[in-house]
């Protein structure tokens, strides 16, 4: 916050120096420029007639989507069950795979140690940038639609995701109880089980539940790429333009997501 003197000697205060002011302005200007350019490039093929037509379209679709075809509900229970299983089993698989991986990369953990860190990171890093849907696409294309692809699609993103978080609670843990447990003569695995694990359990469990909730959401759409679950019904209904069915499916998905989010919030609240 610079104080400066003007030509006739009086002191003035400005928020930034002139130079900083210029840089600040240039920064903003370039951001705006980038966005504007991106906009032009993106919309060069956009048919604006469609866009202005959208409200009318929306009204048209809405009239065809309502009322929802409630009778279709009976056909949805099995796919919903499949979706739930995809998400839950996928999360469980991911948790089982993630715990040992998560304990390794932490700097402080004595067993394992430095040599095991790079391979552990290698397993963590690649799946993460890819979305569940993309992974499902790849898996379905290679393994074929069906149970195994379904189960796996749920797993890799969580596997990639979970290990990123536990090392943070582990690194953030307090060292004093760990030192105390070492001082009693406990073996290194005991030190982990009694000194480290109880400290990270709430955070870890919270993340697991949070991830399960996200997986339910993802699982509802995986069917669109053929991996099973209620998304398959969505895909087929849209293909035959059965809009009242689509509406029902969307309502079912919305209710499912709201319930799973409620469960996840309650469990996380109870754990802390």
């Amino acid at each position, binding site marked *: 916050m610079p104080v400066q003197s003007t030509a006739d000697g009086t002191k003035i205060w400005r928020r930034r120096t002139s130079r900083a002011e210029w840089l600040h302005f240039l920064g903003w200007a370039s*951001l705006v420029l*980038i*966005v504007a350019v*991106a*906009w032009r*490039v*993106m*919309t060069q*093929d*956009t*048919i604006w007639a*469609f*866009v202005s037509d*959208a409200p009318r*379209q*929306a009204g048209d*679709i809405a009239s065809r989507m309502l009322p929802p075809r409630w009778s279709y509900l009976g056909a949805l229970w099995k796919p919903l*069950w*499949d979706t*739930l*299983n995809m998400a*839950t*089993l996928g999360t469980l698989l991911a948790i089982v795979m993630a715990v040992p991986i998560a304990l390794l990369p932490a700097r402080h953990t004595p067993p394992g140690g430095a040599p095991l860190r790079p391979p552990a990171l290698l397993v963590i*890093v*690649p799946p*993460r*940038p*890819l*979305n569940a*849907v*993309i992974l499902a*696409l*790849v898996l379905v*294309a*290679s*393994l*074929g639609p*069906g*149970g*195994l*692809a379904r*189960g796996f699609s749920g797993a890799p993103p969580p596997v990639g995701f979970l290990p990123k978080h536990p090392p943070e609670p582990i690194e953030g843990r307090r060292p004093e109880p760990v030192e105390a447990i070492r001082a009693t003569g406990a073996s290194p695995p005991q030190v982990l089980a009694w000194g480290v694990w109880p400290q990270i359990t709430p955070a870890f469990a919270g993340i697991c539940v949070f991830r399960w909730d996200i997986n339910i*959401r*993802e699982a*509802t*759409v995986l069917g*669109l*790429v053929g991996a099973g679950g209620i998304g398959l019904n*969505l895909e087929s209904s*849209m293909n035959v333009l059965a809009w009242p069915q689509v509406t029902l499916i*969307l309502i079912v*998905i*919305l209710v499912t*997501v*709201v319930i799973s*989010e409620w469960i996840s919030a309650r469990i996380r609240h109870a754990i802390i």
Partner: protein
Amino acid sequence: MSTVARHWAPPPLIANWRLRYAIYGALALYLAFALTTIDVNWARISEGLVRSGRLLAGFLQPDFASRWGDIVTGLLESITMTITSTAVGILISIPFGLGAARNIAPLPIYAFCRAFIAVSRSMQEVIIAILLVVLFGFGPFAGFLTLTFATIGFLAKLLAEDIEDIDPAPLEAIRATGAGWWQVLAYAVLPQVAPRLIGLSMYRVDINFRESAVVGIVGAGGIGATLNTAMDRYEFDSAAAILLVIIGIVLACEYASGFIRAKVQ
């Protein structure tokens, strides 16, 4: 002191024994049923393994050349979608975030903003993309709208929570000077939430790019469409090339965003 052996067992996780058995029982039952639904069709698996072998081989020799034009188009769409939707999303999330913060917003506005955010977060982006494609036609514009909508839900909620968590003392102090609502915002709220807002925005750029790769599968533009086509045609080497590009850009985004967040905080 008594010489009778006193027993001890660790206290159970759920105190009420009826509740405990009910929950454990339900979970066990569920697992039993769920595991039976995994139908493993070995014939398909073995076929599948052959195909995945070809996919993996594709990774070892990714083909960037033959579909290069399509890759560039798809990538350009994804990148421009990411940039525009994040920018517009940030702009719109700010008023929504302010409106959803209990400590600065009046009740009706608070209720409305919270409801909007809840709807935005409940629906999966792909579903929103489908609807918007139906309304607005194929192409990146629908994708832009999808990502903007998702960005608003994400950023507004976190911004609102951040605002609700701010230290109330400066807020009170600035109000006490007689400052107007906007001034209170600028002097008491903004300085406290700005670093985290910038950090979250950078994080959202990363997420939006990943999402932009997905919405293309349903026709909303971006590199997802290119990937889908390649997979449909079993051109695994091109598909591998696309996947590698996606992974590369996401990692670069993460690195850059981590760097910027560290500098801001």
